[in-house]
């Protein structure tokens, strides 16, 4: 302790207050651009679009792009949930089966029990959220690896779907249920409401991850859960929330699937887990968590749809689509690893 008297200090001239940080509505242009991880996939997508446009004059049209968006709608919405989970360094293998179960529940409840379509849809989504809760609870409370947990729930969801539906597609759906498959015209192009919903969900998720505290907590938990916990983030609640919200997205995807196909298909969704993970990886998100962007996932989803559509228009045998997808995934992960090391 200082025994000397404090020296008298000359009064400090008042200084102009420092300008407050830019308000949310006025973020700089640099912040609006997608992060570096997305640039690679974006370039790949643009290159693919340009290439296919040269190969077939039917490729570059509003109608064709609207079609591609419809085709990637279901996996696209599933991939939103998958992105959130992968950002927390988790993974969800059950997503496709949960979606299928949701679609069977929402259709059978309406057709078999005459339930009001909106109520039936709510039940279908509730089932998906419930499985999300189970996944999250097992991951947070018993600390089981997400890979193992969702491997188990994937099989359970599949079995329940088959048993409940007797492996039969559900037909004779009420009109209201397939609303998102209906279209409206913009000039020459017809766009489905489901596509608009998908784009809206991506926008919402983008805003959530960028602008809200819980969104940033997701990244923190994925980056370093222990550090996140020490800064006061309730990591268990974040994880549980993520799995439940993803379940909700799978439920929405179930509704979109029903709207697109006009039936409840118990055999649907079987490859959607790997397809959604492919989209997330192609979009530059790291499987190790903490890094990535939902914009990247959207680009990844589009890449798969564009290649499938473009190669079919070119008449290339479908086996090459599979080959190309595999090569792209390796390139995406390798690029991510190399750029991460440099950064």
């Amino acid at each position: 302790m200082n025994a000397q008297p404090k020296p008298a200090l000359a009064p400090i001239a008042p200084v102009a207050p420092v300008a407050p940080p830019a308000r949310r509505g006025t973020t700089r242009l640099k912040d609006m651009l997608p992060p570096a991880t997305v640039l690679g996939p974006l370039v790949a997508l643009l290159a693919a679009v340009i290439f296919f446009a040269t190969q077939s004059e039917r490729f570059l049209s509003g109608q064709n792009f609207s079609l591609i968006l419809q085709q990637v709608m279901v996996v696209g919405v599933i991939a939103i949930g998958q992105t959130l989970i992968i950002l927390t360094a988790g993974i969800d293998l059950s997503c496709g089966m949960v979606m299928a179960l949701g679609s069977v529940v929402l259709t059978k409840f309406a057709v078999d029990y005459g339930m009001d379509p909106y109520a039936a849809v709510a039940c279908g989504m509730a089932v998906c959220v419930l499985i999300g809760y189970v996944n999250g609870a097992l991951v947070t409370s018993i600390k089981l690896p997400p890979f193992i947990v969702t491997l188990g729930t994937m099989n359970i969801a599949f079995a329940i779907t088959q048993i409940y539906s007797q492996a039969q597609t559900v037909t004779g759906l009420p009109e209201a249920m397939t609303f998102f498959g209906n279209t409206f015209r913009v000039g020459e192009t017809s766009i489905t409401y489901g596509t608009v919903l998908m784009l809206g969900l991506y926008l919402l998720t983008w805003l959530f991850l960028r602008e809200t505290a819980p969104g940033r907590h997701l990244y923190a938990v994925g980056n370093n859960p222990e550090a996140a916990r020490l800064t006061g983030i309730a990591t268990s609640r974040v994880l549980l929330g993520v799995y439940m919200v993803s379940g909700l997205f799978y439920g929405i995807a179930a509704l979109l699937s029903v709207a697109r196909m006009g039936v409840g298909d118990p055999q649907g969704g079987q490859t959607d887990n790997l397809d959604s993970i492919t989209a997330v990886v192609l979009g530059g998100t790291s499987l190790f968590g903490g890094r990535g962007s939902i914009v990247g996932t959207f680009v990844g989803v589009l890449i798969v749809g564009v290649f499938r559509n473009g190669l079919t228009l070119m008449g290339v045998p479908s086996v090459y689509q599979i080959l190309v997808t595999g090569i792209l995934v390796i390139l995406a992960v390798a690029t991510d690893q190399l750029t991460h090391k440099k950064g």
Partner: protein
Amino acid sequence: MTAKHCFALALIASTAGLAAAAEPVVGLITKTETNPFFVKMKEGAQQAAKLQGAKLLTGAGKSDGDNAGQITAIENMMSAGARAILITPSDSKAIVPAIKRARDQGVMVVALDSPTDPATATDALFATDNFKAGLLIGQYAKAALAGKPAKIATIDLFPGHPVGIARHNGFLAGYGVAGVGAKTAGLARSAEVVCMADSYGDQGKGQTAMENCLQKNPDINIVYAINEPAAAGAYKALKAAGKEKGVLIVSVDGGCAGVRDVKSGVIAATAQQYPLKMASLAVEAGVTYAKTGKKASGYVDTGVTLITDRKMTGVDSRDTAFGLSACWGK
């Protein structure tokens, strides 16, 4: 004789009696538990086993392509004393060593629905002639088009699957494309086929495949679909493009839902196959082997029928009333 002797004699006699009446054990291994096609097969097998007084064991892989699951089922059934095993092979090559082990132990092995590779790896094959199924619908399509130029889209299974190849090539051969036969390897192409896309036998993917094909060539007037779910998906795509009236869809399978689609006009004609017949004939053969040691051999064609309500001259067919009485699934 003492009571003990009497008791011992009675016990031996009854055991001998039981042994003589022991029912033959036959095993059925399908690709999956849940596909309605295999559910019907199991039903047919159970009915036949009951009639013949045989005990039926059943097993399956977890999914289409699960070879390891089928190997495990073979081994378990051998331990349980099966004298004959009937199997729909998920992987026609990879299952062969396990089948050989079973046959070396004196078990008769019969392939159902699709052959092993080589086909001689099993004692016999009870199956639909998938090439013929395609042939029938190809002939029907040709007759229905009545000389108009064809623009064909084929909605196939996935690369490399023998059933997918057989049906596709059969369709083209039936349509009249030269140079395509039952032995043609790989999916055949021709000038009339303007688009080939994969559905994986799935309705959703079938819809995507048809949408992309329509984008490529909006004038498609014939669609061949590998099965009825794929056909339903193709119809949805055509309907969304406003083209469902002018396009003919043909498929294979003859499931009850598919025959209903033929009745409602979604599918023009479908080739119906008979999983129940496959299984019951095979179970009978298995019981015959267990009782007499006589093995089944060769290929038994379990039949395929063209189902349509719009009959074409020159092509044999039955109507949907028959189709619904003979269909599988619900």
